[in-house]
């Protein structure tokens, strides 16, 4: 289970590919469940980088936790939330929208 992530060129903010665009939170990122879907995400990432929308494009492992996408590796968890020592900063600082039922 994988999602596509990058940092936005203009401000460097971590973003995840979701519903045809780049979202600032990981929760609703488009999930690739198989190799074909993964290849599609990779192609989207490469095109977005070539189009100067984002930089440092990566495909990362995720799991579904409480109905929301959550990265597997600690590094990616921290990217998705913000510094663990400053919970007032980063994505964690603003409440994440719950997944639509």
């Amino acid at each position, binding site marked *: 289970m994988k999602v596509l992530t990058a940092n936005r*060129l*203009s*401000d*460097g903010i971590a973003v995840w590919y979701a519903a045809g665009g780049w979202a600032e939170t990981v929760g609703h990122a488009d999930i690739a469940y198989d190799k074909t879907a993964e290849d599609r995400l990779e192609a989207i990432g490469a095109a977005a980088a070539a189009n*100067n929308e984002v930089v440092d494009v990566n495909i990362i492992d995720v799991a579904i936790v409480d109905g929301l996408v959550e990265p597997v590796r*600690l590094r990616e968890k921290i990217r998705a939330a913000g510094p663990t020592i400053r919970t007032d*900063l980063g994505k964690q600082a603003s409440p994440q929208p719950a997944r639509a039922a």
Partner: protein
Amino acid sequence: MYRYDEFDQDFVHARVAEFSDQVQRRLAGEITEDQFRPLRLMNGVYLQLHAYMLRIAVPYGTLNSRQLRMLAHIARKYDKGYGHFTTRQNIQFNWPALSDIPAILADLASVEMHAIQTSGNCIRNVTADHFAGAAADEVADPRPYAEILRQWSSVHPEFSYLPRKFKIAVTGAERDRAAIQTHDIGLHLKKNAAGELGFAVYVGGGQGRTPMVARKIRDFLPEAELLSYCTAILRVYNLYGRRDNKFKARIKILVHETGVEEITRQVEAEWQALKDAELKLPEADIQAINAYFAPPALVSRPEGDDAVKRARLDSKSFSEWLDQNVVTHRHPDYAAVTISLKGIGEVPGDATDSQMEAVADIAEKYAFDELRVSHEQNLILPHVARADLKAVYDALVEIGLATANSNLISDIISCPGLDYCALATARSIPVAQEISRRFASLERQREIGELKLKISGCINACGHHHVGHIGILGVEKKGTELYQVTLGGSADENTSVGEIIGRGFSSEEITDAIEQIVDTYLGLRLNPDERFIDAYRRVGPAPFKEALYAGETKAA
């Protein structure tokens, strides 16, 4: 302190204009990331986990209040209200937008600051003893020579594309507070028997994945030959340093693989062709640069002794701060003050915009407008009249920066680690915070005495763990953070690389392990004056291994 001349100012403005144009072209999609990356790195712009990071140079760690206020302004206007002072005496901002960087650099240029050569394979910010110009044990102020090196190394055409980054540090005292033996070139400013100034030259120190202590290749280099000799070293390195493997590209590897005798021979041979020629520093030039670093007019303030005595009686906490964070100045009526950025449980090296503003006010009012950033991630007021120490202390209490822990176990060096850094493999700041909280009692810390604890969140060792009396290296193992402990490192005139004590510890175990190590030391030291590092050097690792792992052996 040094003031930009017309050339410096024009140069920095030209660079701001050039990089602003490059940023605009990047944002407009006219240049690719591959083309832009080396350009942004040359201007101190990194991409980290959450955002870009801007590293701003603080040459040899020297600042005035106007500059610190500008850093506060940048923190407030373009970042998230704080900055992080680093082990290279610089400051980093963790959240700037790329589109704001041209404005930030223009603001910096207005106070004679920049971010040039804070990254990339070039000669980086030259660092120096943070008590330079104030220390009682100093032969001469090392900063004029650091400034000469800065001018020489800035966009040096021959040395802008080295095999790898290159770091130079200078100290002017026997007691090395600049960690010169952990640098690519370490310079110890001293006098020879004839009373002439010169340098002992060390080469090939460094940390990272292959830590090495620098080797002395010359005991006395006349001051006038500083640039010719450094050029000779850089030429040998530029020619023979490895470019095939990033991990073997630092000069330490060249020195190690070639042998110090052969490297010395090569440098001396190169130098024979350079000395007594155009790179020889004219006496007038040395004097001109020295004049910029003329000490402030330190008027006699003999009332300080009585004032300090009275204040000590009135306030135990002031007295403790005085003992721990205030050191002797070359002028008997003055002192140098360490402003700890290591409040208990705080992030080492972080300061808020309002703290920076307040410290700038204190420096302006009580410290001749001079400030330093130490490589231990604290701020320094190098010249404070003893008569004003209580007022300075009271002002620091108001902004939460009066923690009396300089050189104690909670005065921890820590890299940003996995909370910010794209290279990190584990978090380092939370470990520093937990250890700091565990040892929060100042009484306990003072009983333990001098103890340098340093934490890195990856093998690149930005947190100097190799040279911590106790070093902690965070790695990722099987998807979790694991902390390796090294003991016996130091970064002073007796520099040594710490030894790995045994298996690593989980994030839940590491603070207990550190406490076990400290308790073991307290149990075996000969007397309270025997510092941790001295005790470790006397007894070696065995008692510490026994304390940490004996139970496991028995259980196995």
